[in-house]
């Protein structure tokens, strides 16, 4: 090989080395062998290196290159091949040198390859081969490998040669393919997840519809007999068919009051589902607080007495409030019935009601079993009962405080608890005296 030829090759290869290091991600680890600028000084010009040294450097670079490098003369015969070519194609160099380059071209493309090669000689510039096409090369064992090839012409005294740098891109192709598969998998999984979500939504809608239908028919079926029970009790109470004796009057009153209570229960059950759906509405009226409290105390007095629990209440006289009377009674009842339920025999319950700064503060204080600190927030969640404390006190569903909290908040108020296990509990409700809640149209007829 002439000195000039070698130095030109070197220039080409040095260029190539640059190209390869710029493309580090795709190049194999062999790139390192090309030598980085820090570890091996790159010749500034080829003339600065002696021919023999230059020749050796060229050989080193050529052999270390991770890509296959061949040189083909104008007749299409291979004049040079590096180690990477041997690895890539499975031929020894002896099998390649002076053999037609067609050896490495798949059978199907050989005809075209010939034409292309002729065209290249008429316009020899450095360029990628078959850009935009998926090039294949053929190994000795007949297997095809996807390759990228860049061509650069080399001028010799006796004419041109072309240097082809061949990069095996099987790994990249495989990675691309893998990526596509993963993307497709994700797309499919996403589609499945969407379908499942839609099915679930339909299911939820259906369940909601069924629930509404159930509630509507339950309400209808319970109201129908209550209609005649309440109606006839009222009629009897009017005594238009003749006077009742005092006992009979009392019996009729019991029937009347309890059937009205039953009606309230039905409304409450419907409210519960409205609370869950976020549709709770309140109907504020002005009333005297002590009256409402008195009515509730009357209902818990008996069960408290049965456990010898003392029931004390202090309520400011003439304290008027604008709120939903039925709901406020429900709040009081829930707190008081809890106090009775969770206070052992001979305990004490104290109710205190006072007004200050536009608010009324109601506290229900018991000497009962108390609530551990870590449970004090969750008792306001629906269906939450303190396991240890409710043991032995099995009645109830854990809805009382959940409803109570919602009702209080709907009135623009707050509820809190202070308690310690074994030391009793104190629930405090603060309500605005004037109701700020929007008055809405009746949700339900009463």
């Amino acid at each position, binding site marked *: 090989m002439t000195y000039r030829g070698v130095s030109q090759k070197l220039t080409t290869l040095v260029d190539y080395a640059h190209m390869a290091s710029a493309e580090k991600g795709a190049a194999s680890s062999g790139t390192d062998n090309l030598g980085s600028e820090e570890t091996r000084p790159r010749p500034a010009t080829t003339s600065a290196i002696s021919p023999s040294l230059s020749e050796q450097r060229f050989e080193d670079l050529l052999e270390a290159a991770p890509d296959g490098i061949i040189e083909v003369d104008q007749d299409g015969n291979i004049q040079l091949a590096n180690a990477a070519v041997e690895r890539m194609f499975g031929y020894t160099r002896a099998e390649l040198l002076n053999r037609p380059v067609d050896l490495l071209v798949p059978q199907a493309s050989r005809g075209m390859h010939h034409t292309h090669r002729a065209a290249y000689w008429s316009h020899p510039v450095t360029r990628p081969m078959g850009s935009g096409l998926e090039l294949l090369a053929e190994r000795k064992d007949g297997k095809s490998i996807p390759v990228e090839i860049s061509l650069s012409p080399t001028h010799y005294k006796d004419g041109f040669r072309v240097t082809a740098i061949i990069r095996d891109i099987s790994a990249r192709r495989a990675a691309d393919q893998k990526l596509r598969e993963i993307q497709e998998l994700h797309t499919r999984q996403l589609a499945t997840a969407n379908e499942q979500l839609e099915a679930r939504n339909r299911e939820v809608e259906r369940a909601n519809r069924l629930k509404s239908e159930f509630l509507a028919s339950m309400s*209808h079926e319970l109201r*129908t007999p*209550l*209609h005649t*029970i*309440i*109606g006839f009790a009222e*009629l009897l109470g*009017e005594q*238009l068919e003749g006077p009742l004796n005092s006992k009979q009057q009392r019996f009729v009153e019991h029937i009347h009051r309890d059937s009205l209570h039953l009606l309230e229960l039905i409304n409450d059950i419907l409210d519960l589902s409205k609370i869950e759906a976020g549709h709770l509405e309140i109907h504020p009226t002005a009333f005297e607080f002590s009256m409402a409290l008195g009515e509730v105390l009357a209902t818990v007095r008996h069960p408290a007495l049965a456990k010898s629990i003392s029931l004390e209440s202090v309520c400011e006289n003439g304290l008027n409030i604008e709120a939903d009377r039925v709901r406020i009674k429900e709040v009081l009842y829930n707190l008081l019935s809890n106090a009775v339920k969770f206070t052992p025999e001979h305990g004490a319950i104290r109710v205190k009601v006072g007004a200050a700064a536009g608010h009324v503060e109601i506290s229900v204080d018991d000497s009962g079993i108390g609530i551990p600190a870590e449970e004090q927030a969750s008792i306001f969640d629906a269906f939450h009962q303190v396991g240890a404390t409710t043991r032995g006190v099995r009645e109830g569903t854990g809805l009382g405080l959940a409803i109570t909290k919602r009702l209080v908040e709907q009135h623009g108020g707050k509820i809190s608890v202070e308690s310690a296990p074994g030391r009793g509990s104190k629930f405090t409700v603060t309500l605005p005296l004037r109701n700020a809640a929007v008055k809405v149209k009746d949700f339900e007829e009463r």
Partner: protein
Amino acid sequence: MRKILIADDRAPSRELIREILEISGYEVVEACDGGEALEKARELTPDLILLDIEMPTLGGFDVIRQLRTDPRFAVTPIVALTASAMQGDREKALQAGFTGYISKPVRLAALRAEVARLLQ
């Protein structure tokens, strides 16, 4: 004497309404389903009709549709008296042409007041 037709498939309910209204001095005619309600209405042209909504054969909504197309009943007060008391039921009734809506269980005072108001 003012004549009131009550249509309800439950006998106790009819008896209750009859009692409440007769005490107040009205003449009460009963129908035990929608079909009979139509017949009696056409035959007796009552001053006021209290219609249950859920009745066998012909429901309250069917009855009112047929009655309202009849010029004789174009302005007759017709009140829904029903145990359907969920959200929207009142609006549905008024939209269907009912003059008023009373939910069950009925309170005596409320029913009397409403009837008196409509027959003024």
